[in-house]
């Protein structure tokens, strides 16, 4: 059974290249793209994809905030965060928002397929260079 994917990123080129990259997997289907958080929320509701690849840093609403809103309404959708910032705090907050994984964009070519399959099995995925907040409770923010 195919895995439906929604890509939310403010960079069109990234969306296009990710789509092409995911099409190399026969069971992956990119069902839609969104260029910001609100559009991502809207399409998530309309398309109910299995997985959303969500950019963290976008103009206006951040990817984490969009994730929180999507997860509140559609908790079955797995959200994988994509970012250029290897921030533990971002990662922690993304998890708190309902994300299932956190990838750095410079490793997305190697890791995104594995990450999608991992979260589809119900697990979490943290890319290279990202500390797993679940394994490092000391990283939790108490402030």
């Amino acid at each position, binding site marked *: 059974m195919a895995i439906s994917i929604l890509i939310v990123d403010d960079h069109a080129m990234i969306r296009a290249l990710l789509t092409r990259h995911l099409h190399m997997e026969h069971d992956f289907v990119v069902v839609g793209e969104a260029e910001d958080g609100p559009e991502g929320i809207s399409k998530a509701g309309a398309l109910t994809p299995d997985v959303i690849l969500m950019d963290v840093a976008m103009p206006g609403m951040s990817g984490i905030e969009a994730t929180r809103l999507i997860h509140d309404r559609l908790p079955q959708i797995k959200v994988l965060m994509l970012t250029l910032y290897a921030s*533990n705090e971002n990662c922690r907050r993304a998890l708190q928002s309902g994300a299932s994984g956190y990838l750095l*964009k410079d490793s997305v070519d190697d890791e995104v397929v594995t990450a999608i399959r991992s979260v589809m099995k119900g697990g979490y995925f943290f890319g290279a260079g990202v500390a797993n907040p679940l394994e490092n409770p000391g990283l939790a923010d108490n402030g």
Partner: protein
Amino acid sequence: MGKNRRPPPVSAALPSTPEELAPAETSRTFADSQLLIHELRVSALEMEMQMEELSRASEERIEAGNLLAKYCDFCKVPPAGVTGRELTGRKPVEEEPCSGSARLRLAYLAANAGAWEWNVRTGESVWSDEVWQVYGLTPGSCQPSYDAWLQTVQPEDRPTLEQNVLEAARTGGDIALEWRLLDAGGAERWLMSRGQPQRDDEGEIVSYLGITLDITARKLAELELLRHRDHLDVLVRERTAELERRNAQLAIEVEERKRSGELLRAYAAEVEDLYNNAPCGYHSLDARGVFLRINDTELGWLGYRREEVVGVMRLSDLVTAESAELLRVRFPEFVARPGQRCDLELEMVRKDGSRFPIIVDAVALRDTDGNYVMSRGTIFDNTERTKAAEERRSSEKRFRGIFENATIGIFHTDPDGRSVSRNPALVRMFGYQSAQQMDAAGDAAAQYFVHPEQRDSTRRAALQADGYLQREVEFRRLDGSHFTANYSLRAEEAAYGLFMEGFVEDITAHKESEKTLKRYASRLIVQEEEMRKRIAMELHDDVGQELTALSLNLAYIDNHLGGPTDRDLRPPLSDSRLLTKTIGRTVRNLMADLHPTQLDEYGLASAIRSYVDHYAQRAGVAMSVQVSTGFPRLKPLQEMALFRITQEALNNSAKHAAATKVSVELNSDVSSVCLCITDDGKGFVPQNEVPRPAGYGWGLTIMRERAESAGGRFSLYTVPGAGTSIVVEIKGAF
């Protein structure tokens, strides 16, 4: 002890001449020794004379006995006193051989001797009357015989006598005996016998014919002689030991005298050396001013030889004309008046004509009548002092020039602030036209000594300060306007008492410039942050996305390479993908350093925590973050300032302090927030004490500026070897 055994001459062990000895004690000891020697010699002579007399008496007695024996032998008659019976079987020469002639009896009597004959075959004897007398027996009181004779002998002498007699009889030799007996009065007497063997026709010994003499006198003389000799020996030994002791003592004293003499000579040489090579000159002048003595130091200064000066030149010959004139007046007074001391500053002239200033300090030596004998003068080269005085005058002139022309105000006051002197710059600084006007303004003069209310505390501080007390002070001018000044004050103890010296430097313009600079610095910081943020965003939006696109493209190409010719493309493609990731990480770190996006999104605590996490991994140093509950969001400028200070501090701890642990604390209360960064590194001496350590200088300055631009107060606590703490506190609005 015979005549040739005199004690060794004591004079051989004594010093050869009395002059070698020390004057008093040594002479006395020497005289004692000589007297002792003389006494010893007299005693020895007396004893020798007594001994000779005794010997002579004894020898005469023996000689008489011998003569008697010889006479008897010559006459072939038995000794006088023998009863005339035939004992030996030989024919008697006379019918009564022992009755002898009157002359022979006289000889017996003279020698205190008697004759006897002993028949060796029968043991019977014939004794003359003298023999009976000598033996202390009454004639006819017993049967004369060998045994009767032996009974008269002292028991302890008997074995020896018997042995001698038997030996003589066995060998046919003469009998020669000496023995003792006790007479009827119990006195011990010494007897001597000489006997010759009488033989029959066959040559066999029939009897012995002999005489017996009483040699008690001789024996006593001999004993007396021996006693005298022993006594003399003891005396000689005692006197010799005494002499040796005194001689050794004398030798020690002589050696000590010799050493004392050497020491005295050494001291004299030392005194002479001190005189000649003293650091000052010495000379003595007679009443005319002619040199009697002069030391090498002064001669060296002058360039003359001693013979050119002593007894030849006057002091006035060696000084300038002005000094000579001074001497002409002062020296006669010095010579004439007892108690007068000569203390003059003169100028001497060297042999080469050059001059040098001196100070001469002289006293006069006078005889018991107070008449001048000579002077004793000490001369000091006054060149350095004169030069120092000139330099002091020059320094004072220079100081006066600086004082009058300086652009900073300079003043001197008494400890109560009353003006002693003030320079024109100070007068102008306070808005007065002249020093007089300033002084006339009453307490205005004291104003520059600081405000009256602070005067006591300032004075105490200045008195306790090591060097100048330095403060920044706000002053009021004559027209009521104010100015800020760097104010330096110190207390100085002078010959005339304590005074205060101060400097006032108007830094109003400097302070204004400083404020302007701080404003510029704040603006620069803001602009820098804006610039950093813009660059970071551009990196994110452009470079970062493009690198992601490049990664995806390279992955796509990699996935679609399949043909045989594509095989060669895989290695460079793989390298390119790797390179892209490396560039991506670099850009990511660069973005984080340029602008922490979390600071905008989540605030200071989150940004610092995230930064510390990453930096600890990069630097390999254990770092921790503690944030108090409810730590607030601050103004962007404040958050950025504290974040940048944290970055700089962590960098210093890891790179310069060699710290192994760093803690970051963020605390807040209702009115303030506080950032405290502490490491366990090597610490350093703060820059206001020594030049700043490498890497710390500008970093600390910028941290301080950032803190102040954010309205905070920056504090640094560090001790070499004990780590460093940086504390930034921001109070008030945030």
